[in-house]
């Protein structure tokens, strides 16, 4: 029986870590004698699969196109300094706290990270947060951390954005940053980004004292959707017994007036009409938009379109 795939990949990793000069595929095959197929096409195929696997688990394989008598050939090596986890010395209590934290979000990827830091299997937690995952998030976070400009498509427009920060609010991730095309700071829903996020070589400076909390409205009913919109409030009448529930959500400051029957009229932000409408309709027949007229008309039109869609 020939060498196993695990053995071949481990040996490839060892070789590329050990070598001082980048190695061509021909040199790699010579060193790992008997591990790879002899025929050039099969050899290339097997090597590319192994390389992709190693890169996928985070191994930084570097490539270099050679000159001289090997002109045009690609050579490979792994820089030890970039391969190893360094500079992160956690005390036992810190490692334990981080492990408990990963248990609250129950993340398999987080478990991999915990293992690398010397932690163990995650315990169970009495508080759990299901945090939305999206493949663009790690890319956007790194770009934000390294201050690199990114590109992505959003609402059918190709954008070039300096990602100042990320925000998780009401279960959705937003990225906020300077949009080069629009020349101003905008917010984008990460899960509505179309396709992959590209990272450019361009860097940016985040404005002094930039605060993501302040840049994003505190309430999703205030959030724009990649476009700017002036803040607007609506007046919503809520009947008993839901008025008491809404009061705990919005607080006394939102109360405009109280009715004798226990109903309450609240001031509710409605800049983001989708979020606002969803919130009002979630209260069913207990709530009614009183003013302004255009916001009320918007809800009425929505309800009529539902009637029309089903009866047509």
């Amino acid at each position, binding site marked *: 029986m020939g060498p196993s795939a695990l053995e071949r990949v481990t040996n490839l990793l060892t070789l590329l870590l050990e070598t001082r000069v980048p190695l061509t595929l021909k040199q790699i095959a010579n*060193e790992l004698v008997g591990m790879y197929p002899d025929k050039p096409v099969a050899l290339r195929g097997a090597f590319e699969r192994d390389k992709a696997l190693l890169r996928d688990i985070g191994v930084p394989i570097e490539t270099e196109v050679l000159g001289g008598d090997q002109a045009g050939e690609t050579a490979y090596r792994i820089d030890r300094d970039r391969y190893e986890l*360094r500079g992160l010395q956690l005390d036992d209590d810190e490692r334990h706290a*981080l492990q408990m*934290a990963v248990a609250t979000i129950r*993340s398999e990827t987080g478990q*991999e990270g915990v293992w690398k830091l010397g932690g163990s299997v995650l315990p169970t937690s*009495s508080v759990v*947060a299901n945090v939305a995952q999206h493949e663009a998030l790690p890319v956007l*976070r790194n770009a934000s951390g390294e201050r690199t400009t990114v590109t992505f498509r959003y609402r059918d427009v190709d954008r070039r954005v300096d990602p100042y920060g990320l925000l998780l609010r009401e279960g959705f991730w937003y990225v906020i940053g300077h949009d080069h095309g629009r020349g101003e700071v905008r917010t984008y829903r990460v899960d509505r980004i179309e396709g992959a996020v590209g990272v450019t070589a361009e860097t940016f400076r985040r404005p002094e004292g930039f605060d993501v909390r302040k840049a994003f409205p505190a309430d999703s009913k205030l959030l724009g959707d990649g476009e700017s919109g002036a803040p607007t409030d609506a007046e919503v009448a809520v009947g008993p017994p839901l008025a008491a529930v809404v009061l705990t959500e919005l607080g006394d400051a939102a109360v405009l007036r109280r009715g004798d029957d226990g109903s309450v009229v609240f001031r509710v932000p409605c800049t983001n009409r989708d979020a606002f409408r969803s919130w009002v309709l979630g209260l069913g027949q207990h709530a009614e938009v009183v003013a302004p007229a255009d916001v009320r008309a918007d809800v009425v039109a929505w309800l009529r379109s539902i009637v029309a869609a089903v009866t047509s």
Partner: protein
Amino acid sequence: MNARRASTLKVRVRRLLVILPWLAERGSASLAEMSERFQISEADLVADLEQAAMCGLPPFLDELVDLYIDDDGVAHIDVPRFFTRPLRLTAPEGFSLLIAGRTALALPGSDPNGPLARALAKLEAVLGSDGMVLDLAQPPATADLVAAVDDLAEVRVSYWSASSDEMTERTLAPRAVFADRGRWYLLADDDRSGDERTFRIDRILRCERTGRRVEARDVQVPSGDDWFDDLGAADVITLRIPTTERWVVERFPVRSVGDDGDHLLVELAVASEAWLREVVLRLGPHAEVVAPDEWRDLAARAAAELLAARYPTD
């Protein structure tokens, strides 16, 4: 090579690169401990370690992974210098650790100057400061309920139930608190139904301890893909949605069951008709209930009734 074998190989390589540095630091460890710690069967562990021991490059024979497993099930190993340190964190791993730490720090009862905060500061120093904010705003009752879960304390609550559209009084044995899609929930044993139920914490109006202690019991907290609501799943409906309007269901746990190019078919578990009325109003004209038959016109009825009750003269 087929996809399944490829992914298994990836998992094995990644695990090996975690186990080798850990073992290298200790020199020896029992198979039982490693099996528990790295969530791998002892047989798979031995197979992978033996494979690793066969690795090495012809010119430097002295740098093979040197392995010996003794009769007591203890692995002794000498690891070449390449694998004495773990592989750096991948971007997704770093991201997961950061959001985990920041999430836990935002939870009730966390210590802003404790070991977790220090661990996060170290992580940020390595991964770069990124201006990320997690807003996990909790309804007022959340902290009390977390404490009640930890203390095994029974509570009495006033709860507005969407399913029956009324305020209810219930006695609960709190089991776990969790957040999903931006909302906070309590998982508890409910005296009204005699069953385990999930309650939206923002709809708990009053909450006080009864003074009684409840028996400890393990529960399974639903993940983001599972179904849950305050009265448990009773029925499943099928919705038809234009592909471009997928977002209308993203606040709800749905299962995709097919698409015909322009439209998606998704299944949604329904707790009650009252609850479903609220949902179809929020989903709007783009989402069509295609099954079961008795709920095909529910959205139209609900919308017409709401118009008649609240907006009769518009």
